[in-house]
């Protein structure tokens, strides 16, 4: 047998857990935020389950998914329907989640099998059994129930142990945040028992806060502003003063606490009311507070007197009133109690923790039979060498679930993206990410094959996160836990680090666009030197107007070139060449960036043996007009698609913003396309600046949420494409190769958190999907049938189409699919279709 030692106060609004050890009781703190109390609230938010203080914030605004005060419903058959999970939850289930969360407070690494849980004196058998059941669901094998007034008395008796004999009647006065209880406790030699009790489940500290608001703050606001309907409007949910209401709620509670500490307080705030600015400084005096608190306090004293009267007792028969609950901090409460009852008061125990502390004292004297697992786990503490063997016996984590993570170990951003990959049976399991300092807690989130989570970082320190995995009952699978460390903003200060990536713009001919290739990465220390070896991607005839453009840009290497600042641009035109420059010939680009960030470039054309040297100081901008026009068009195209995407996803606000950007972009269109190559005005710089800014803003549209959606979309499409490629009948190997190429860049583009980069990959996948379909016979047949039935108005050359249809039919008959495919392709080429003409005369930079 072993002592139970753990005591839990499972409260209506707040819960606590404490442990007895070595003749001392410790109240555990929430690792998230270091508070001793945990709000007894559970929130089923759209994609995660939250337990505790954060859940409480959503209580008023999302009542169909967030539940509190379920203690009042224990032992009833009432169920809560949760809209977000389309299922019912019971008060027992909700309580067990709170109990499980409290177990996380235990920082000693123990997983107790037994505990004491307190219940109100008023609980009947059904309610008590419901509490037992909640305890069992939370993983406790042995549970002992204890009435709250007894727990409070025990806390007090043990605090003053060794003193005189405690026999007689005691009153426990428990005045919390939302409930009041008065209990008559009798102590005899051998035992403590609750003789009688009275309570009010809707009377608590918040009533004082409202008294301050309604009787002091609101009248003063009306007096100063003359707004006559202020009182009616102020407390209205979603009303026009709602924001001020929350502020005043906070100020009122602070003022109340200030009153307990110093005897007087001021409520001071500035606000705008109906378009006018006001500064308020409202005194809350001791006298006024005494006056407005009195009716509330009297209500509690009335209940207390009822208990006495019902039991034929007078104040003289009571040894002391034991004060518990946060509201007993108020001096007015103590004064009135003393004055009106004449009984001596005892406030020697901490009123917020007393019940949990008493429960732990009680637990110290209760015994239970530990299970084999617990005994085994204990052995591991003693015999560390064999710990792993035994632990693997007690840990029931499924061997068929594998969890991997991917993230950047250092960052200069305010947040980093974490990728979680699962293999095996991840359905109906959850993960939870907690930052060790307590400022971030993801709550319980359903696992998926791939998940992304944005981790906020505290600047200039190493941020530690724990990833824990839970089964469907929210029990942790301990062997799957992972530690994640990300250091923010740290680098060796040997030299000056580069604030941005420096990249070169190269052609991406396959996708008819350009992309960036990093030369120097952000945070590399200056000076830096590097030589790039590339091929010329198009032939340039000596003396022609064609040219190659070497653009050096500063910014995020993962963003589209347009979002970067061009810091150097070298144009080598046909007229500069000694001989023709043939596609595929080599080009060497040497770059050197000095301490003071002057960029030196040397370009060597191997074929013509020519060298071009340039020096750029990073304050000068270089802009090539033709490239700028091309960039304009591609941004316009992208934004147009973005608007469509948002429309499709019904993201109205994003759509409005994207449209605004598009409109702003259009304002420069005419100016830009009118500009002559040799224009000497500032115009092109102004336009370039604007396009760059719009491009950066386009990247930010929708923020993290959009990025998450895109990543989800990416994985979804990827699976689709994979499947299509598997069933393709032609060019399977080539399709696979392209697929792998995209897949290989996955980790880097997801981590980049850059919309346009992810978008590019999405589009590549999309194209690949069409390509794969176009190589699948069954799909080709469907398309062919569709084309066959189209009327002449759909074709540019209907006669040509008719003969292709004939050929197609014949090939299909003969089951000559390669030939059939050719005909379908030609046929589709005859269709009027405007939507794939984009970028057909792509010029690019000439560097591949």
């Amino acid at each position, binding site marked *: 047998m072993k002592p139970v030692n753990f005591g839990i106060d499972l409260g209506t609004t707040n819960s606590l857990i404490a442990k007895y050890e070595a003749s001392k009781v410790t109240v555990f703190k929430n690792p*998230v*935020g*270091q508070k001793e109390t945990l709000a007894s609230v559970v*929130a089923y*938010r*759209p994609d*995660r389950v*939250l337990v505790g*203080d*954060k859940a409480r*914030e*959503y209580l*008023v*605004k*999302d009542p169909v998914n967030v539940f509190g005060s379920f203690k009042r419903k224990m032992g009833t058959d009432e169920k809560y329907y949760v809209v977000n999970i389309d299922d019912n939850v019971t008060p027992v289930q909700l309580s067990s989640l709170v109990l499980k969360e409290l177990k996380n407070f235990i920082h000693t690494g123990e997983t107790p099998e037994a505990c004491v849980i307190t219940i109100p004196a008023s609980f009947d058998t059904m309610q008590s059994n419901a509490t037992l059941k909640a305890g069992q669901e939370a993983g406790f094998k042995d549970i002992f129930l204890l009435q709250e007034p007894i727990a409070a008395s025990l806390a007090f008796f043990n605090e003053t142990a060794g003193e005189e004999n405690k026999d007689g009647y005691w009153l426990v006065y428990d005045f919390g945040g939302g409930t009041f209880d008065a209990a008559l406790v009798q102590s005899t030699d051998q035992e403590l028992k609750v003789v009688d009790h009275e309570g009010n489940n809707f009377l608590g500290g918040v009533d004082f806060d409202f008294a301050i608001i309604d009787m002091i703050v609101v009248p003063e606001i009306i007096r100063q502003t003359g707004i006559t309907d202020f009182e009616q409007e102020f407390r209205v949910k*979603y009303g026009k003063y*709602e*924001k001020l*209401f*929350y*502020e005043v*709620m*906070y100020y009122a509670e602070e003022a109340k606490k200030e009153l307990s500490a110093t005897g007087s307080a001021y409520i*001071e705030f*500035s606000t705008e009311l109906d378009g006018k600015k006001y*500064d308020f400084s409202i005194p809350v005096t001791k006298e006024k507070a005494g006056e407005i608190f009195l009716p509330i306090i009297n209500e509690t004293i009335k209940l207390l007197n009822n208990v006495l009267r019902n039991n034929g007792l007078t104040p003289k028969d009571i040894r002391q009133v034991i004060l518990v609950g946060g509201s007993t901090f108020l001096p007015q409460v103590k004064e009135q109690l003393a004055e009106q009852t004449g009984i001596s008061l005892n406030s020697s125990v901490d009123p917020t923790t007393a019940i949990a502390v008493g429960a732990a004292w009680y637990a110290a004297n209760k015994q239970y039979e530990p299970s084999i697992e617990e005994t085994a786990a204990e052995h591991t503490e003693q015999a560390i060498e064999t710990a792993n063997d035994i632990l693997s016996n007690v840990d029931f984590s499924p061997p068929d679930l594998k969890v991997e993570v991917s993230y950047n170990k250092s960052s200069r951003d305010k947040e980093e993206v974490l990728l979680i990959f699962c293999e095996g049976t991840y359905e109906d399991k959850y993960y939870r990410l907690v930052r*060790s*300092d*307590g*400022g*971030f*807690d*993801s*709550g319980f989130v359903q696992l998926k094959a791939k998940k992304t989570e944005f981790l*906020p970082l*505290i*600047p200039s*320190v190493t*941020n*530690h996160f724990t990833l824990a995995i839970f089964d469907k009952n929210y029990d942790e699978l301990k062997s799957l836990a992972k530690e994640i460390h990300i250091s923010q903003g740290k680098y060796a200060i040997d030299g000056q680090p580069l604030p941005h990536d420096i990249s070169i713009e190269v052609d991406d001919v396959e996708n008819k666009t350009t992309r960036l290739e990093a030369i120097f990465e952000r945070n590399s220390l200056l000076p830096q030197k590097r030589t790039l070896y590339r091929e010329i991607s198009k032939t340039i005839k000596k003396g022609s107007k064609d040219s190659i453009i070497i653009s050096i840009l500063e910014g995020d290497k993962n963003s589209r070139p347009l979002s970067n600042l061009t810091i150097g641009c070298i144009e080598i035109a046909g007229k500069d060449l000694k001989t023709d420059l043939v596609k595929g010939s080599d080009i060497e680009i040497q770059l050197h960036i000095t301490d003071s960030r002057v960029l030196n470039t040397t370009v060597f054309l191997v074929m013509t043996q020519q060298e071009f040297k340039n020096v750029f100081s990073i304050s000068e901008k270089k802009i090539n007009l033709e490239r700028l026009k091309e960039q304009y068009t591609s941004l316009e195209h992208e934004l147009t698609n973005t608007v469509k995407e948002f429309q499709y996803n019904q993201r109205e*606000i994003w759509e409005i913003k994207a449209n605004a950007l598009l409109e702003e972009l259009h304002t420069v269109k005419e100016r830009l396309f009118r500009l002559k190559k040799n224009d000497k005005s500032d115009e092109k710089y102004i336009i370039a600046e604007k396009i760059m800014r719009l491009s950066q803003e386009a990247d930010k549209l929708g*923020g*993290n*949420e959009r990025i998450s959606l895109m990543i989800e979309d990416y994985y979804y499409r990827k699976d689709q494409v994979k499947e299509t490629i598997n069933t393709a009948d032609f060019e399977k190997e080539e399709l696979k190769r392209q697929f792998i190429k995209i897949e290989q860049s996955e980790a880097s583009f997801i981590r980049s958190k850059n919309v346009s980069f992810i978008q590019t990959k999405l589009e590549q996948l999309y194209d690949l999907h069409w390509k794969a379909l176009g190589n699948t016979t069954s799909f080709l047949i469907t398309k062919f049938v569709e084309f066959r039935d189209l009327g002449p108005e759909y074709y540019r050359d209907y006669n040509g189409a008719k003969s292709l249809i004939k050929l197609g039919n014949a090939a299909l008959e003969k089951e000559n699919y390669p030939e059939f495919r050719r005909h379908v392709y030609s046929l589709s080429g005859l269709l009027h279709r405007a939507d794939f003409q984009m970028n057909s005369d792509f010029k690019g930079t000439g560097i591949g």
Partner: protein
Amino acid sequence: MLNPAHIINQLFEMQSRINEAGMTANFERNFKRLYSLFEEEGYIIQDLTGEAYTESRTDCEAGISGKIGSRMTITRTLKPVIYQKKDGAVQLLQKAVVIAENK
């Protein structure tokens, strides 16, 4: 001993009110200096105004004004977040008290 969180809260409130009175410029240097003194002692102080509010943010207690939505912003900070650096670890010393709105 003086509770640093209490001092920081007063400082923060003073700053907000000076701000509201449009007199920030007169005191900017003093505030910078005062905050840096706390930073030297290992306190990290954050005003969350303007940041996104999410349900994973346990660094604040929020009053949610208006309808809840998936993109909420912290529009007012009544009390700042305070972290404390100690022996290489960071601990949340005080949660911020904020107002969040769906914007």
